[in-house]
């Protein structure tokens, strides 16, 4: 795209990996914007990212800085990779454009006791089995069929509902952000249309950049041996990672409330914004609170979705290896969301404040001691799962104390460098599949066109993104995981 009419800002260098755009860049900016990135990544971001993150800096109640992560690229309202904290008790707003349509789109990582040698001979069988067990594609429906009332229960209870039904283990919940239940979800705030769209989608990957991968922990890719060991990661191991969200349900919740907010934003709350994709309402208004509760429903829907998928992944492995999932050591390492807002306590100018932290295409990376963490991770900080492109690999990171500078937030993936359309013009799905197979990555997909959109070349260099988060002190590297098998939605 051509953004020539958009102004390129002057950056103030804060460190080798942090760049600031001052409030003089644009009228209405309440705080400066800060971009966490290497100089190279920064230079290659398009002007629209700068335009969008400085629009975010104009939102009422924003404190300190509007942040953009190194994998930032332009998105709906906020850039993807945009992070902003609003003072809940001082007119701060909540904005669906700062959370995303795919609410609680996130990553889950499962370990195994299997090594590369154990899995390699069965790779195709395993990928095909996973493809059958975990429905993928635009309108895919899951094996859990729910009526509307049961679905309403699921979105209020989250992943624990699934575990109670026998989909997964109690231990999974201790290794899930928020325990898999974003408390305060209220199904009454969700439209029946949203329920209708969601009730058959529990246990499905969906389409786009959603995938399920079998990954290999190469010995040279473990960077923090102590943490890796503690989290059950060892050299030459096979792990399973997947990426999905709240499907049509989250999308409908976001659409419903964007409409609501557009109707009241100016007339009722006198909020002036620069881009209608940033439609907002005061966090403490009835509309803001309803959206927050509905968003939590979508959070829970997504946790339940990933919980059900874990169950299906374990089934697939135990059928292929004719061994119980417990005996295969298939414990969950962690589950993180990268599209959400949460109410958190942080220090601002020396005093504790309640902030509505928006993370859109950005992952929470709470450091040691943070109250958000389940007891298992309170000493070391939380595991952070970063999904790279399907060709290049993914990362396991850990939250650190110095992460407080970005409200304990880090990157979420590699970040696109080109539009889906452009990627389709440059790559062909069927050729890509063959080429990846030659390199030892077996891919099964519902759509070649969709596969082309996800070519590694359409993404930024994941290693450079991760290095930026490591060097800037917002998270630290634990291990890199490279794909050998992929089910693409």
């Amino acid at each position, binding site marked *: 795209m051509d953004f020539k009419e958009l102004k390129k800002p002057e950056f103030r260098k804060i460190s080798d990996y942090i760049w600031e755009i001052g409030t003089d860049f644009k009228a209405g900016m309440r705080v400066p914007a800060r971009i966490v990135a290497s100089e190279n990544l920064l230079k290659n971001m398009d002007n629209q990212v700068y335009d969008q993150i400085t629009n975010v800096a104009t939102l009422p109640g924003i404190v300190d800085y509007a942040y953009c992560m190194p994998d930032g690229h332009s998105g*709906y309202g906020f850039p993807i990779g945009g992070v902003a904290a609003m003072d809940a008790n001082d007119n701060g707003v909540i904005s669906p454009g700062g959370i995303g349509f795919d609410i609680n789109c996130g990553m889950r990582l499962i370990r195994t006791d299997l090594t590369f040698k154990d899995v390699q001979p069965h790779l195709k069988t395993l990928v095909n089995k996973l493809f059958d067990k975990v429905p993928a*594609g635009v*309108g895919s429906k899951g094996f859990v069929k729910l009526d509307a009332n049961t679905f309403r229960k699921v979105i209020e209870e989250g992943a624990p509902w699934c575990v109670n039904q026998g989909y997964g283990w109690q231990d999974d919940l201790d290794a899930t952000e928020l325990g898999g239940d974003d408390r305060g979800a209220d199904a009454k705030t969700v439209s029946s249309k949203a329920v209708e769209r969601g009730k058959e989608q529990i246990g499905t990957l969906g389409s786009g950049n959603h995938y399920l991968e079998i990954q290999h922990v190469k010995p040279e890719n473990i960077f923090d041996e102590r943490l890796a060991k503690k989290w059950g990661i060892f050299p030459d191991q096979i792990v399973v990672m997947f990426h999905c969200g709240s499907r049509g349900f989250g999308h409908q919740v976001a659409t419903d409330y964007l409409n609501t907010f557009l109707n009241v934003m100016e007339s009722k709350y006198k909020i002036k914004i620069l*881009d209608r994709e940033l439609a907002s309402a005061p966090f403490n208004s009835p509309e803001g609170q309803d959206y927050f509760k509905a968003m939590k429903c979508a959070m829970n829907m997504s946790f339940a979705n990933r919980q059900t998928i874990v169950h299906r992944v374990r089934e697939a492995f135990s059928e292929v290896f004719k061994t119980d999932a417990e005996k295969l050591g298939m414990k969950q390492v962690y589950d993180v969301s990268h599209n959400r807002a949460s109410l958190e306590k942080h220090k601002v100018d020396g005093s504790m404040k309640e902030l509505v932290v928006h993370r859109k295409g950005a992952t929470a990376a709470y450091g040691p001691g943070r109250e958000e963490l389940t007891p298992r991770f309170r000493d070391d900080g939380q595991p952070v799962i970063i999904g790279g492109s399907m060709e290049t690999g993914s990362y396991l990171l850990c939250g650190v104390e110095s992460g407080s500078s970005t409200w304990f937030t880090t990157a979420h993936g590699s970040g696109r460098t080109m539009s*889906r359309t452009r990627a*389709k*013009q440059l790559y062909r799905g069927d050729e890509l599949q063959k080429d990846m197979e030659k390199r030892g990555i077996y891919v099964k997909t519902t759509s070649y066109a969709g596969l082309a959109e996800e070519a590694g070349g359409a993404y930024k260099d994941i290693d450079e993104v991760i290095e930026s988060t490591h060097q800037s002190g917002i998270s630290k590297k634990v291990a890199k995981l490279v794909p050998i098998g992929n089910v693409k939605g």
Partner: protein
Amino acid sequence: MKVPVTVITGYLGAGKTTLLLRIARETDMRIAIVMNEFGQIAVDSKIFEGKNIRIAELAGGCVCCSLSGEFGLAVEELIEKAKPEWIVVETTGAAEPGALAYDIKENMPLVKLDSIVTIVDADSVARFPSLGHTGREQIELADILVLNKIDLVDKETLESVREKIKKINPRAIMLESERCGIDFGLLFGVERDSRAKKHRIHKIELEYFDFVFDGALKHDAFVSFLESMPKGIYRSKGFVRTEKGSFLMNFVAGRYSLEDFDCGKTELVFIGKDALGNKTKTIEALDSIRI
């Protein structure tokens, strides 16, 4: 023959549903409308539950449907079940139309992309200085831009909105409307909206003229003619015979296609806001390339 597809995009609340309701009620063609949800249109209609699609029959021959499977498969099923003459696809307000348009062009052999219509809410563009990521892509990729809700802004504001939109997409045909009152000739290439007259909806009328000729035209000269179509002609379609064969011709907003098609003579219709002003010139140009 490939079924033409019109993609309708626009921001939340821009007027997409209004336009679709009008298409469903006012055209005489067998149009299949693919909507996000069709509750508003298909009240009391019989619903067919397909594998990839739900289809509702409407009075007057239109059907509307919502996807339950992958888009490509759904469209194949739709064509098989409903045999539409034309397919109109509504995208969600948050959708980026580029990937969809590409899919239609490259990966769906039964259909062809006719045009992308983007409905722009003039009032909203005036109120928010940034166009947004999605809003911008919708405008950028449009063949036909419908500047809607012009009754909500004053003259000067309208002019600045026009300029802003033109800067992003100078190629598209720009129309202005109040409640998506546009001439369907522009969308479908033929004046088939006879029922619209009963509804007495205010709309900006377009001008039409025909060119009919029993013989053939010089092929290369005809292609050059299409490439230099006067600006006042927005759309043209029909049949053409040349020394290279006979074709179905479709022209919209500077883009044209020639598809092999069996026809006895050359018969073309020209549509535009100032089509008649260009009539003499156009007919003369075509007369001069007769074989």
